[in-house]
């Protein structure tokens, strides 16, 4: 393959070779730096609400209670001694589901979930996430949204 595409002068002199090699090294260096610079666009810090948040004392939630934390997109439910935290982010394409008489309905594409977040109607294919609930030393309950758990992963109030 000839690097010089000039049809009349199909020759690669030493001078041209050295020139091309130099420019190639420079170009490779610039492209490499530009590639490494992609790291700039990776978000190193997040500005959203923290993934761990307190939801208050267990006695604030009577049996059968269902309370929505809008900012955190979490629904806290209590059945007897069991307290659970259900994500309100639809597993289809991420809209926020709304509590309804049958459980949770998604306003975007009509997905439906039952009262414990199991999918009952598409297009969603998966159940709503449940989040880990733990007791803080202060006696408050804490929901950790980075701790994703299967359906009916309750915290048992002692």
């Amino acid at each position: 393959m000839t690097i010089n595409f000039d049809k009349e002068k199909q020759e690669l002199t030493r001078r041209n070779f050295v020139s091309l090699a130099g420019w190639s090294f420079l170009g490779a260096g610039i492209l490499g730096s530009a590639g490494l610079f992609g790291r700039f666009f990776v978000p190193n810090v997040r500005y959203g609400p923290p993934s761990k948040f307190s939801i208050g004392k267990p006695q604030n939630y009577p049996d059968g209670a269902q309370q929505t934390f809008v900012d955190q997109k979490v629904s806290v439910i209590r059945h007897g001694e069991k307290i659970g935290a259900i994500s309100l982010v639809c597993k289809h394409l991420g809209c926020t589901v709304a509590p309804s008489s049958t459980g949770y309905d998604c306003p975007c594409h009509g997905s439906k979930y039952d009262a414990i977040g199991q999918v009952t109607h598409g297009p969603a294919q998966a159940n709503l996430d449940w989040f880990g609930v733990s007791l803080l030393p202060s006696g408050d309950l804490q929901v950790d949204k980075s701790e994703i758990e299967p359906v009916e992963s309750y915290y048992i109030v002692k």
Partner: protein
Amino acid sequence: MSVQTTDPKEDPPKHEPKASAWQRLNRAVYRQAPEVFDNVKQLAYNLYKSIFRTTAFPKTERERSEAFFNSFLLHIQPAKIDKHALKFNYTFGLGLISFYLFLLLTVSGILLMFFYVPSVEQAYNRMLDLRSAVSYGMILRGIHFWSANCMIGAVFFHMCRVFYTGAYKPPREFNWVIGVLLFVLTLILGFTGYLLPWDQLAFWAITVGANIAGKADYVSDHLALIPGVPNFHLGIIMKNMLLGGDTVGQEGLIRFYVLHVALLPTVLFFLIVIHFWRIRKDGGISSPKESPE
């Protein structure tokens, strides 16, 4: 040691080393369509020619000229130029240095815009995050800061060079005027950019600057001497127009931000284009031959 028992001439003809898959594919393609190779070569040639038009290695005077006016980046330069114009210590390259700094400022500024938020609640924290949390954020901020300072210096020294070589004289007098506008725009860009970090230095610098504008009542004071003209404070009007209020706040920040990232750079860019175009139209850079001793 093995002993050769038979005459090598009587060996069955040795096979060529087995062709690689790539070579076999090439042969297969060539058997089917020999013109494919020529077409691919022609395509590469056409592609190169469609982009570059001229040879990569100009040898004759004509080819060297063509390389200049067929290249977008080089066509700004004249194909022929006086020898004195290439002497470094005639221009010190200050005009192009200013231009390159402007390009650097544009690129680094656009990148900084990815993380900066022009709000009084967030601006300062975003600036701190750029320094500490964003990858390459500190070097970008440094590039933007130092390029801005150097650009003001470069433009100023460019102006000095133009003055001392008499390049402001006819027929280049209008280009001098554009150059003065470019210098003022550079200063205003520096001033507007100074507020954006939203720290104490920025806040009080802009407070002082806006109040200096607020004191400039000379014109309105003298207009008020004319009978029938109402007494008004031009300075206060200018200050309020600049800040969008009485003090430096959210209104002022967003005004300075829009001026700094959108309006002023656009105006500056078009003036630079006219500035460059006028250099060629006014007969290239000035020459000692033009002024009789």
